[in-house]
């Protein structure tokens, strides 16, 4: 229990610092793009309401002429999309503040969550860590939890087309866990079969392939989406660098002092 408390303390410090750093950077990088993208969120009119209302013989002839082509795709293109400002876009200062603080809390919880995960694995592996080695762990966390999932499912803005949410969540999870397992195998094993297995494990979700939308029918301008991907990954890299190095430093000071002594590298 005491060990858990010390581990939790280390993860709390690392998570709060990295979550705070991410929050500050997000507010000037990814969040403005999310708000911008929400302006493009589209509500298409329901099919019945979108159908042209026509009466009389001329209209009937016109309807007959249109009749051969009412495939879903053609219909979807025919219905003029109605652009609406996303519901979440804050309109008052109070709403904006609420959106800010819930995002900060979510970032802090994500930081503490990831730090608990990394700290737990650090402890299990039993290798001595410090801030420098922690930075390597952070790099590993970035590759496993940001880069590997993004390789199949690029960071997405609101309003982008995507496959079924549960399928994407499942694939995201599989890509992250497989990449983490593969990285740990490559980092800590010297046995060739395990090294090969690690590489194969990390590649497996990508060989299966990530679920994507059937057609690229998103409404967000591609320039916005491209900037978001770069900024999101860059912010994640900063987050993981802070998380890893602080976690490494805290683990050596708070958790590892009993078992490993203070001999430095």
């Amino acid at each position, binding site marked *: 229990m005491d060990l858990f408390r010390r581990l939790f303390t280390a993860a709390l410090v690392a998570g709060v610092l990295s979550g705070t750093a991410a929050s500050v950077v997000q507010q000037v990088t990814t969040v403005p793009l999310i708000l911008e993208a929400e302006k493009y969120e589209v509500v298409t009119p329901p099919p019945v309401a979108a159908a042209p209302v026509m009466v009389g013989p001329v209209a009937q002839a016109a309807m007959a002429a249109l009749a051969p082509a009412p495939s879903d795709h053609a219909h979807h293109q025919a219905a003029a999309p109605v652009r609406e400002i996303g519901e979440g876009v804050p309109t008052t200062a109070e709403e904006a503040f609420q959106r800010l603080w819930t995002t900060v809390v979510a970032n802090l919880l994500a930081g503490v969550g990831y730090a608990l*995960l990394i700290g*737990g694995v650090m402890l299990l592996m039993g290798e001595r860590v410090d801030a420098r080695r922690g930075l390597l762990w952070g790099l590993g966390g970035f590759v496993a939890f940001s880069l590997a999932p993004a390789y199949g499912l690029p960071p997405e803005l609101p309003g982008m087309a995507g496959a079924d949410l549960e399928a994407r969540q499942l694939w995201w999870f599989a890509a992250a866990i497989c990449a983490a397992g593969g990285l740990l195998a490559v980092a800590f094993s010297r046995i060739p079969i395990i090294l090969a297995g690690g590489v194969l494990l990390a590649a497996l979700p990508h060989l299966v392939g990530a679920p994507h939308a059937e057609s690229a029918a998103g409404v967000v301008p591609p320039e916005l989406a491209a900037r*978001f991907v770069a900024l*999101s990954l860059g912010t994640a890299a900063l987050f993981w660098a802070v998380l890893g190095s602080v976690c490494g430093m805290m683990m050596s000071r708070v958790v590892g002092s009993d078992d490993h002594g203070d001999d430095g590298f």
Partner: protein
Amino acid sequence: MMTSRSLRASAATSARTAVAAFAAMLLGSFLLYGVGFAQPQQIHDAAHDARHSFAFPCH
């Protein structure tokens, strides 16, 4: 030479380490599930911008 007592002691130490590590990982996974994956509307709305920024699938 390792006595049976010190063997037991080191086994107990590694068991304690494993329990603490797994407890931390479990709690961490729970937090990440809440921030990144849970679907209830209020949790989704609160974590919305963080989910997009961290590249979790959101919508």
